[in-house]
Structure formats: structure tokens, C-alpha cells
């Protein structure tokens, strides 16, 4: 899952980036409105954390531009402005959730998880595929009740596939969603990770769709 953090306070942005990286997200960040708009407009994010008071272009304007350009990624507004009319304005601009500063990092992470889950059409925090269960709340994976140990990269891959169960996901898409923009991408490494995950699972639920990519599907 790839997240864009938009926050003009350098220290807070670093803290957010660090926490999200630790939680297993690929993270890009922007400190001003122009850069933020450009990134959101060109990169396929799974969620955006957006501050409203930004240099060059304010958060609500960026959000409106993204929405009118057709970007549907969930947006969590993170701001010090906490009156109800400001909240209504932010949500009207196209935000999906609203968190006021100062905030609890755990709460921010929980809300992000819920936003991503809902945006991919999953109501339950437990993602299931056959006997495989991924608990989004604590990032634990188990198969038939037995925990499955995954590396950070393997988890990111499986997490994305579990959120998009049943869809055909290309290697490019996977690359775009598990690496941040500064990462030196090589789509061949995706195949390596997929094979490693397959070996760790008892049942094969990751199907290769020739020429298109991968599809996660439990046994019917």
C-alpha cells in the first residue's frame, strides 16, 4: 500500500513518514501544495494524508482538483482547524475522513487502514482468502489458524493482493503500490517475492494470469 503524506511542518512530516514506514507502507511525502498536487495527480496512491494549510496551494483546493480529475483514492485530512464548518468544508471538498491535530499516531494508522479497506470494498478488518487470514489491525497473517512469517516486502505484496482479492493485478501495478517513488524499481523482483510467498503458504492461492499479472483466489 502506498501513501502520500502532505504536511508542511518538516518534523511532523518526518514523524508521519517514519510511523507509516514502520507500519509497512510505501510512503511519499510533499511539503507544499504544488508538489503534493503533482504527486497525487501522477502516482497511484492507496491513500493520502492531507494537511489543509499548505504553502503555494491549500489542501482543500488540491483535493478539489484531484477529485475533478477523477482520482478516487481515499483522503484523510489532518489539520489543526477543528470547527464543524471547517470539517464540513473539508469533507465537501472530497475528503473521506478528518483528523484534528494534535492526534494520536495509533488513531491515524487505524483510520488509514479503515479508509484503505473501505476503498477497496472490504467491510471486515479481517481479510480472508480460503484458509488465509490477514488481520489489518495488527498486520498478522495466518493460514488455517497457524501464523505465517513474512518479510516486510512479502507482507506488502500479500497485503495489496488480499485487499484486491479476485482482481487481476499487473506486475507494474504491484510495483507502483509497494515501492515509493525513489525506489529503484525492477519488476522482476516481484516474481521473486511472489514465489517466496507461494512457498510459505500451504495452498496456492496466487494464480498467474499469463501476460497480465496475478490474481488472488481461494479454492472454490
Amino acid at each position, binding site marked *: 500500500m502506498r501513501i502520500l503524506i502532505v504536511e508542511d*511542518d518538516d*518534523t*511532523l512530516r518526518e*514523524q508521519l513518514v517514519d*510511523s507509516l514506514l514502520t507500519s509497512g507502507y510505501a510512503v511519499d511525502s510533499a511539503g507544499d501544495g504544488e508538489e503534493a498536487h503533482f504527486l497525487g495527480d501522477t502516482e497511484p496512491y492507496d491513500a493520502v494524508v492531507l494537511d489543509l*494549510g499548505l504553502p503555494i496551494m491549500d489542501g482543500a483546493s488540491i483535493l478539489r482538483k484531484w477529485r475533478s480529475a477523477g482520482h478516487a483514492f481515499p483522503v484523510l485530512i489532518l489539520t*489543526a*482547524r*477543528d*470547527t*464543524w*464548518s471547517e*470539517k*464540513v468544508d473539508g*469533507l*465537501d471538498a472530497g*475528503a*473521506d*475522513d*478528518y483528523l*484534528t*491535530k*494534535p*492526534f*494520536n*499516531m495509533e*488513531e491515524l494508522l487505524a483510520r488509514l487502514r*479503515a479508509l484503505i479497506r*473501505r476503498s477497496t470494498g472490504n*467491510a471486515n478488518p479481517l481479510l480472508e482468502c480460503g484458509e488465509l487470514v490477514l488481520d489489518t489491525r495488527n498486520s498478522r497473517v495466518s493460514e488455517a489458524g497457524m501464523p505465517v512469517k513474512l518479510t516486510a516486502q512479502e507482507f506488502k505484496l500479500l497485503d495489496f493482493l488480499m485487499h484486491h482479492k479476485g482482481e487481476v493485478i499487473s506486475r507494474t501495478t504491484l510495483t507502483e503500490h509497494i515501492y515509493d517513488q525513489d525506489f529503484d524499481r525492477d519488476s522482476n523482483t516481484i516474481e521473486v517475492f511472489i514465489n517466496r510467498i507461494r512457498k510459505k503458504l500451504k495452498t496456492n492461492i496466487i494464480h498467474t494470469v499469463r501476460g497480465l499479472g496475478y490474481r488472488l483466489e481461494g479454492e472454490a
Partner: protein
Amino acid sequence: MTARPYRLFRTLTGRLLAAAGLWTILVLGIGGFVLSYSFSAYVKEDTESRLMSLLDNVIGLAEVGTDDVLHFTRPLSDQNFDTPYSGWYWQINEKGQDPMRSRSLWDKDISSDMDKARFELMFRSAVGPDEQILTIAERDIVFPEASDRVFRFIIAADTATMRDAIYRFDRLLFWSLAIIALAIFSSVIAQITYALKPIRSVRASLADVRKGLQSRVSDDLPDDLLPLSQEINALIDHNEKIIDRARTHVGNLAHALKTPLSVILNHAQDSKDKKTREILTTQSEQMLTHINHHLKRARIAGGGTSQGVEIEPIIKGLVGAMKRLHSDKGLSFTYEIDKALMFDGESEDLTEIIGNLIDNASKWANKLIEISAHKIMDSPRRAMFTLIIDDDGNGVDEDLREQLFERGRRLDEQVPGTGLGLNIVREIAELYGGQALLKASPTGGLRAIIILPLKEH
């Protein structure tokens, strides 16, 4: 403003009355004096000319006979000269002789200094018989038939009737002028009352502005007072701008502090040292509580009146926001709002009240939230409306409900919130002279009731 004793001459009415009063008394006084003087002069002249013609008459009738005695060729016709002490007298003196006198003098004498010649007619006053004050006309005459003898002809009249006429005239004059003065004075009072009415209405209008019943001073005033009300309104506008600016600055300050506080709090969570972590966290949270409390308070526009804010769009906007914020709960909302119901106050304040209440309801509701707003029929004094928000959650025990209005009070610490919501709701409602109450809802959960001023149209 300190109350000070009422002093008439410090009031406009007092000053106008004093000026008008002094002027009236001065003018009427001079006028009265001139009239009274003219009348008495006229009466005096009239008496004198009558005396003169009587004197001429007496002289004309007198002649010195062959017996060297002065006698009248025929008797004087006027009966008054025959009635004793009638007030009308004649007397003819000759040096060294007993004077001839009218019967009316009886045996009294009008004294006259015979040593001084008076060939010119002369008027003088003297006290006569019966203590009468007499006006006397006298003249020395030499007859051709007795050219060595000098006769002094004296005519005297009592001035009582004359003085009486003058006295009656003066009395009439005095009362007439007094009535005129009174009429002028009362017309001045009436004029002041009428002319100063707009000033009193400006004062009443200003009082209404202060009480929040009106947002601006009425400009339904005479042209010369219009600049005053315009200046006052400009001052009110200016004040509002200053308050707005102060409020914005407080807001900016508070918001600017929140980001660094976020950083500190986040950093504290990562600290290895338990004591550092504790101190940083509790202190930052205390700072935050203060900031939030004062920020919310500063934001309340509070208490005034406005053009009116339509309630329904605000509720619908907030419900839209709630549906997004609590989208995983799949809440449904029902409305029952009077048509074109308007709140008499600031839109921000209403949004804050309803936002807090619907957000609370959304947190605790299972599925359904019912919102209704109605005008309160026959509310005494100001028109009010009531807003009711019901949720179908588990509700709150009766004895705990009131505690929810306390600052920083949260019954369930698991659900995020500042605990300022209901506190601020009640504070805003009371600033507008309204109320905020919590009751049990017929749907099983909590019912919030808010009473706020209604804008009538």
C-alpha cells in the same frame, strides 16, 4: 458608566428650558414695562388736559365786577364742584385775601405759595382734603378790568380713579403676560419633547444593539441626526472588525501551536525514558486542553442577532459530513424540520452546536438518528425554536446526563473526543438566551434538546 445624580441643567431639556425661560421673561418683562409706562403716561396726560380745559372754563366764566369783587358770570355746571369732598375742586387765591373755593372743598384750603408768580400753567401734586392725592393745575391771571390785581386759579382733581385705572390695567397686563409666558413655556416643553424624540429613539435603539435584539442602530431618523446613527453604525462595524481580527488571531495562534504540540506528543511516545514520556505527554495534553477551551470560547460569536441563518441546509451539510465520517456504520438520518426555519444568530455557532450533537449521536447510534426542528408556539418574549436530535443507541443514565455538560467530561474514554463538545454546545446556547438539555429518547438512546432564538420573517 457611573450613575450620577440627575441634574436638570446637564440635560438638553434643562438647557433648552432655561434658555427659553430666560428669554421669554426678559422680552415679556420689557414689553410689559413699556406698555404699563405708556398707559400711565396716557392716563396722566388725559387727566391733565381735562384739568386744563376746566381751568380755562373757570377763567373764562370769571370777571371782576364793578364792585371790585371777582364773580362768575354764570354758575359752573359741573355738579362735582358742589358735592363735598367729591374729588373735583376749584379755588381762586388773591394775595392778602381769603380764597374763593368750590363748595366741594367745604372749608379746606388748597395751599399754594402766592409769593411765586405762575403766569405759565403748572401741574403739581399735593395731599388734599380727606387724604386725597390731588393733581393740581394752577395759573396766575390778571383781568383787564383790574390790572393791578393777580388772581391764582386752581383746579384740582383726585387721582384715585386714575391710579385705579392704571392699577387695573397693570394687573390685567401682568396676568396676560404671565399666561403668555406660560403658554410659550409649555410650547417649548412640547417642542423639546417632540424634537428630542429621535434622540431618545437613538438611545433605545443603541440599548437594543447592546442587548442583542438589533444588529444596527435604526436609520429612520431626521436628516440632521442621520450622520449620528451612521457614525454609530460605522463604529459598530469597526468594533466587529476588531473582534473578528482578534478572533482570527486567537485562532491562528491556537492552530499554529497545535502542529508543534503534535510533534512533541508523537516524539514523547517514542521516548525510552518513562518519566520524560509522562511529563511531555501530560503537559502537552494540558496545554492542548487550555488551547481548545479558549479557542472554542473565542470562536463563539455569541449572543447577537443576524440576518437569519437557515437551519435545514446546515443540518443537511452536517449529515453529509457525518455519513462520510461514520461511513462504516451505515447510519440513516430522518428529518422533520419546519419550512424555512431561521436561526437568529451566527452560522458558525449553529454549525458548531448541531455538528457536536449529530457527531455525538452518530458515535452512539446503532442505525438511526432522528432530527427535528420546530418553532415554539407562544414562547414568551423572544421567538424561539427547538431542535431535537434522537439516537437509537444505549442512552445515558439520568444521573450521568448532566455531567456530560462539564468541561472535559467523557463518559467513554475509548471513543475519541476532546470532551468539550457538549460543554461548548451549552455555552453557545446560553449565550443566545437558549438552553441545552439531555433526555431519554423514545427510540431508546439519548435525546438532545436545544432551544435557540428564531429569526422571524
